[in-house]
């Protein structure tokens, strides 16, 4: 499959108050970005259950983005993003044990005013995941199973 026609499927879990606003703004401002990221808006990055990320990979995502408000101070709920930065290093460690490349998972912070940064992330991350090729979690397990 690793051909040039491969279009990665990326799921982005974005907090309503910062990164989603940035993504919205990037779109409205007609910033150039590939259409590979399917955005799921959540109220806070602290609401992102690690199971969402695992399920995205299990169901066919080639990459996952988690993004919220800058800590400390930007979170609409004061400390929701603290939960995020406490959890995500462990999610990274899990993915490493599962054999999923760290380049397939990005987590970080983009404020509502950083539409340019969002568009750049989408361009860079899509290219990065495209270079890795498809993950195809279920199919690769089934094809190598016996």
């Amino acid at each position, binding site marked *: 499959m690793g051909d040039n026609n491969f279009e990665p499927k990326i799921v982005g879990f974005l907090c309503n108050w910062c990164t989603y606003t940035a993504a919205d703004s990037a779109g409205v401002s007609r910033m150039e970005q590939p259409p590979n990221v399917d955005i799921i808006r959540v109220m806070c990055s602290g609401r992102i259950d*690690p*199971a969402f990320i*695992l399920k995205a990979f*299990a169901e066919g995502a080639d990459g996952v983005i988690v993004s919220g408000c800058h800590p400390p101070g930007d979170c609409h709920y004061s400390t929701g993003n*603290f*939960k995020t930065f406490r959890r995500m*290093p462990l999610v990274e460690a*899990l993915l490493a044990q599962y054999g999923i490349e760290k380049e397939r998972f990005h987590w970080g912070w983009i404020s509502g005013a950083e539409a340019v940064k969002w568009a750049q992330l989408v361009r860079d991350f899509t290219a990065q995941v495209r270079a890795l090729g498809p993950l195809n979690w279920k199919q690769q397990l089934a094809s*190598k199973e016996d």
Partner: protein
Amino acid sequence: MGQNSKLKLGLYWAASCGGCEIAIVELREKILDLDAAADILFWPVALDFKYKDVEAMPDGHMDVCLFNGSIRTSENEHMAHLLRRKSKVLVAFGSCAHEGCIPGLANLFDRQTIFQRVYLETPSTDNAQGLLPQTSTQMPEGEVTIPRFYNTVKTLAQVVDVDYTVPGCPPQAPQIWAVIETILSGQLPPRGSVVGANEKTVCDECKHKREEKHIKKFYRPHEIIPDPDRCLFDQGIICAGPATRGCGALCPTVNMPCRGCYGPPPNVIDQGAALLSAVASVVDADTEEEAARIVGEIVDPVGTFYRFGLPASLLHRSRLADR
């Protein structure tokens, strides 16, 4: 057998340690009540029945089969299909059949890696010729075959339809008896139910005193002598209580942290993710660097958070290498 109205019962072990069998014996004198109420038609660990005895039964002959153990080999899978066919009600009995359990942690490796380690590398191995198990070997007397060892450990429900699940490593004797009484009464719960366990979490049953959690450092059980009155998790010991179906909080009662053997509570799809979430969110760190350092000290996250449930989890196993 068969001429009376006694329950026709079968018990089988696939890839398991034998603990579930001990748990049945742990019924103690009630095992005599079980014998009075049921004819045991198949129980390899205790009674001398052969696979051919099961094969000779008409389909659906056994009323209930309690199946413990995960599916590790082609023999396990064959027996799962056979016992499914011969049983009216098939019960995934114990953590291995339910969610893969400790044998399921081998899903972080594949057959080749496991054979390499077990048959060639372990210090206690004396295998100068480097022999590895072969499914078929020619001997002077003819061909000898052994079951195929799969790359991946599966749960019982991943290979056949399962009617009920009894969680636990092993299931606790009073709960086993409650399940047997339910079966004998004929008042079976809706198909697919988890039976012999509670609906709430271990934390809900635990008697330790809980406070707001601020964890600066995680301890493994051997690294700390816990205060017997306070919540173990509050003291930095990773306890699976928040993400585990209630068993009566047996381990915390004796100051050992819950390890998660009863599996996820209702409505949790991935026990490990739920536990990871609970553990990480109470880390007392207000900077990214400090948080990363504290959670980075957790040894083997998959083994810690998915100790009993890796095969049943969202990702099932680690990625398989191209071979």
